C-alpha cells in the first residue's frame, strides 16, 4: 500500500526483556502457576512497565470460535467495538475477562472476551476475503479506528493477557493461576523510553500467533517499510509487531515453512552459503536476495507459538540469551536457566541453541 503521510515520523519503543515458554508435547495441561513462577524468578529482567502471558488450550468449550480478547479505556470504546464485532461476526458468547483488584495495578483498563465466527455470507467491505484475512481486517479496523479499544488477541482456543506491571502482578490481576494450557509463553519487559501502554506489552498476537520477544531490531526502519509495501501497517511502534506481521506474511500468505521463515529472520552468512551444496546455495541466495528487507538484524531472542507448536529463535550472532530444556514431554525455552530450574529442578537435557538456528517443537498428535 502507499505509505501514509509522515510514515517515517514514528517513535520506536526500545526495551530489554525476559522471556519464558513451555510446551507439553502431548497436550498435557500445565497450570498457570508454572509460567508465573518462572517469570517471577526473572523479575529483574523487567522494570514494571510491561508483563504478559499467552496460553493455548484454555477455551476447549469454544475451540472452534475465534476468541477476541478486548481491552477498553472507556464505555464508549466498548459500545463502538461491540457494534463492529456484531456487524462483522456472528457473536456466540461474551463475558468480562475475570480479574481481581490488586494494589500493584492501579487504574487498569476494562477487559471483555468475545467468541465469534465469520458469518457464512458476510455483507461488508471484507466479504471477498478469506476467513483469516477477514479476521485480520476486523482486528486492524478496531485498532486503527476505535479510540480506546484494542484487540489483545484474536485466535482460537488461545488468549493473551498483558499489561503494564511486572508479570507476576499482571498474572495476579488476570487470575492466571486458574487457567490450564498446553503451551504458555511469558514476558517481562524493560522499556527505556515509553511510559508503558497496556496494548504495547507482550505477547503480541494476531490470529493464533503469539510472540514474545527480547530484543531490539536495528533493522526496524526497513522492516516496517517492507511490511507497508506488503499491506501491513505498523502502528504500535514495537519491534515485535514487525515479527508478527512478517510471520503472517511469510508463513500464512507465502506458504513458507516455519524453518524457512526463521531463515528469513536470521539467514545464514554468505560465507556459510558459499560452502553449501549447489542446491542449497541457490535456495539461500534466493531467500536472502528476496527477503533481505525482512531480515531481523540486531539482538533478539523470540518465542513464537501457535496452537500446535512453539519455536525459539536467536539472532545470527546470538546477542540475547535463549536456553532450551527438556523434561519428559515438556520443553522449556527461557532467557535464563534459573527460571526453568525454579519450576522444574530436574531436567533431562539443557542446551543453548546456536545463533540463528530455530528450535521448533511440535505437538505429537
Amino acid at each position, binding site marked *: *500500500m502507499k505509505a501514509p503521510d*509522515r510514515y517515517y515520523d514514528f517513535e520506536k519503543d526500545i526495551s*530489554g526483556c525476559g522471556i519464558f515458554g513451555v510446551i507439553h508435547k502431548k497436550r498435557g495441561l500445565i497450570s498457570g502457576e508454572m509460567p508465573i513462577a518462572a517469570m517471577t524468578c526473572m523479575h529483574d529482567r523487567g522494570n514494571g512497565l510491561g508483563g504478559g502471558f499467552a496460553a493455548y488450550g484454555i477455551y476447549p468449550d469454544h475451540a472452534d470460535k475465534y476468541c477476541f480478547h478486548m481491552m477498553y479505556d472507556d464505555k464508549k470504546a466498548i459500545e463502538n467495538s461491540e457494534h463492529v464485532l456484531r456487524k462483522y461476526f456472528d457473536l456466540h458468547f461474551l463475558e468480562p475477562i475475570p480479574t481481581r483488584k490488586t494494589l500493584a495495578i492501579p487504574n487498569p483498563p476494562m477487559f471483555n472476551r468475545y467468541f465469534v465466527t465469520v458469518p457464512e455470507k458476510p455483507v461488508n467491505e471484507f466479504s471477498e476475503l478469506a476467513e483469516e484475512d477477514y479476521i485480520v481486517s476486523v482486528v486492524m479496523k478496531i485498532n486503527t479506528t476505535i479510540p480506546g479499544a484494542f484487540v489483545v488477541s484474536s485466535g482460537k482456543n488461545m488468549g493473551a493477557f498483558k499489561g503494564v506491571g511486572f508479570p507476576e502482578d499482571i498474572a495476579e490481576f488476570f487470575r492466571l493461576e486458574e487457567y490450564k494450557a498446553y503451551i504458555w509463553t511469558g514476558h517481562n519487559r524493560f522499556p527505556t523510553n515509553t511510559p508503558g501502554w497496556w496494548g504495547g506489552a507482550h505477547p503480541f498476537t494476531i490470529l493464533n500467533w503469539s510472540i514474545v520477544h527480547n530484543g531490539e531490531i536495528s*533493522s526496524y526502519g526497513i522492516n516496517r517499510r517492507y511490511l507497508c509495501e506488503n499491506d501491513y501497517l505498523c502502528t504500535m511502534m514495537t519491534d515485535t509487531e514487525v515479527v508478527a506481521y512478517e510471520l503472517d506474511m511469510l508463513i500464512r500468505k507465502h506458504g513458507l515453512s516455519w524453518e524457512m521463515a526463521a531463515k528469513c529472520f536470521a539467514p545464514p552468512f554468505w560465507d556459510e552459503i558459499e560452502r553449501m551444496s549447489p542446491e542449497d546455495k541457490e535456495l539461500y541466495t534466493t531467500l536472502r*536476495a*528476496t527477503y533481505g528487507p525482512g531480515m531481523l*538484524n540486531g539482538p533478539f531472542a523470540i518465542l513464537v507459538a501457535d496452537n500446535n507448536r512453539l519455536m525459539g529463535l536467536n539472532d545470527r550472532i546470538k546477542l540475547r540469551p535463549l536456553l532450551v530444556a527438556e523434561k519428559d514431554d515438556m520443553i522449556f525455552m527461557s532467557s535464563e536457566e534459573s527460571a526453568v530450574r525454579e519450576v522444574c529442578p530436574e531436567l533431562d537435557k539443557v542446551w543453548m541453541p546456536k545463533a540463528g538456528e530455530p528450535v521448533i517443537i511440535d505437538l505429537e498428535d
Partner: protein
Amino acid sequence: MLFQPINKNYHEFCIERDKDLCINCKVCVRQCSYDAHFWDESRQKVMHDNTKCIGCHRCEALCPTAALSIRNKPSDFRPHKLWRPVFLQNIYKQADTGGVLLAGMGSPVDIPVYWDSMLLDASQVTNPSIDPLREPMELKTFLGAKPKRLSIVTDKNGKPKLKTKLTPQLELDVPIMFAAMSLGAINFNLHQAMARAATETGTAYNTGEGGLHKSLYKYGKNTIVQVASGRFGVHLDYLKAGSAIEIKVGQGAKPGIGGHLPGEKINFMVSETRMVPIGSDAISPAPHHDIYSIEDLLQLIYALKEASEYKVPISVKIAAVHNVAAIASGVVRAGADIVTVDGMRGGTGAAPAMIRDNVGIPIELALAQVDQRLRDEGIRNKASIVAAGGIRCSGDVVKAIALGADAVYIGTATLIAVGCTLCGRCYTGKCPWGIATNDSKLSKRQNPDIAARKLANLIRAWGHEIEEMLGGMGLNSIESLRGNRDKLRGVGLSDTELDILGIKHAGR
C-alpha cells in the same frame, strides 16, 4: 598583465615561482599541457604565463624543488552579490567567441548538499554495536529484479526445495561501482585499471557509451556494458560481454542533451572500439531516436534482453529531474531490472555549463522519492536502485543506502583516486594528469598497474568504513541498512525537505 584584452586579464589562477628554489630544470614546461610554463630564450630561464594556467597543480606536484604554488588570482572583481565573477568571465568569453560555454566535471554551483545535512545513528546500551574486526559484516549485494514471494516446498525427507527461479542478478561484494566513463572520454589505461580493480574487489565498472575494447572482455564478469543514444561500439559480442547492460537515457550533469566526443580524442583504439572513423566527432543524440516514449523503452529493454538471451539484468540510467519518481516507476514497469538515478552534481567530460549548472535536482532528493514511489506502488522488488552523482566518501554511500539505494556509482571519486584535481577542462583532451586524454604523451602518465591498485584501495577503504558504520548501528548486513531511514536524521532542514527525504529531524 598590461595590453591584454579584458578576458585575458581576468584569468583565474596565478603561478607563484620561488626564484631561490627554481633551478630552471624545465620539468614544469614539459608537464604543462597548456603551455603556461615556457623557456624564455632571451632571459635564459623558465617563465610562465598566468593566463594559461587552468589550476591543475600538475607542475606544483612534480616540481623537484617545490618552487611552485598555484593560487587563485588575488585580484578580485568589485564585490557584487548578483554579478559574481563567474558571470562576468563567462560573458567576456562569449562576447569573444559567440559560443556555448563548455564545462567539465560536476557542477560547482552552490546548491544544498543534503549528504552534509544528514547524520547517522549508532547503538548505545540497548543494543550492542558490532565490531567488524571480530564478527562477520556483510556487504554483498545483488542487483536485479527480485520476486515478490518465493515458492519453497518441503520434500518427503523434510528438505526445502526452491521452486522460484531468480532472474539474472549482478553480484557485488561491495555496493560501490565505478561509474560510466567511456573509452575516449578517458583513456584505455584507466579503462583497464577500472576493469582490474572491479575484478579484484568483486564489484563492477561501467564501460560508458564508447564500447568495450576486445582486450577487456576477459573482465566481463565485473563489467556493465552501456548502450547510449549514439550506439557507439554496440554489437552482439559487446552485449554479451558484460554481466549487465545499461541503457543510458540521461546523465545527471547534462539531463536532456546528448554527448560530443571531439574528433581530436578519437585515435585508433577509440575508433576501433566505437566503430567510428579516426578523427571524426562522435556525437550522441539528445534522445534515443528509437525511444520517444515509455513503450519504446520497453521495446529496447526487451530487445536487449533477447539479444543477451535473458542472461543479464538490464539497467536504465536516468538523470534526476523534477518528475524522476514517476519516470522511474515507468522505467521499472517497462521491464528494467535496475534503475540508475544520476543526480545533478554528477561528473561529465563535457557539458554546456548552463545545462550542468541549472538543470536537474540533487541525487539525495531524487533517490528518496524514487525509492518511496516504487515502494508505494509495490514494485520496489522489481528493480534495484543505483544512485550516482556527487558521492564523495563512504559516509555518503551509507546515507545513500539508508535512503534506499542498493548500490552507488562513483565517477568523480574514481578519477580523483588516480590524481584528478577537478580542474574541469576534460573536454580539451589535454588533461595534464593523463586521465581525460588520449594523447599518448599524456595518457602514459597513468600507469594501469598503479591506477588499478589505487582504485582497488579506494573500494577496500570505503568498504572497511562502511563496515564500521554498519556495525556501529548494530547491523551486520547491508540489506538491513537499505531503505532504513530510521538510521538517518536531518540537521537544519525544513519540514518540506525532511518530508521529501522521509527522515526525522535530529533530536527526534
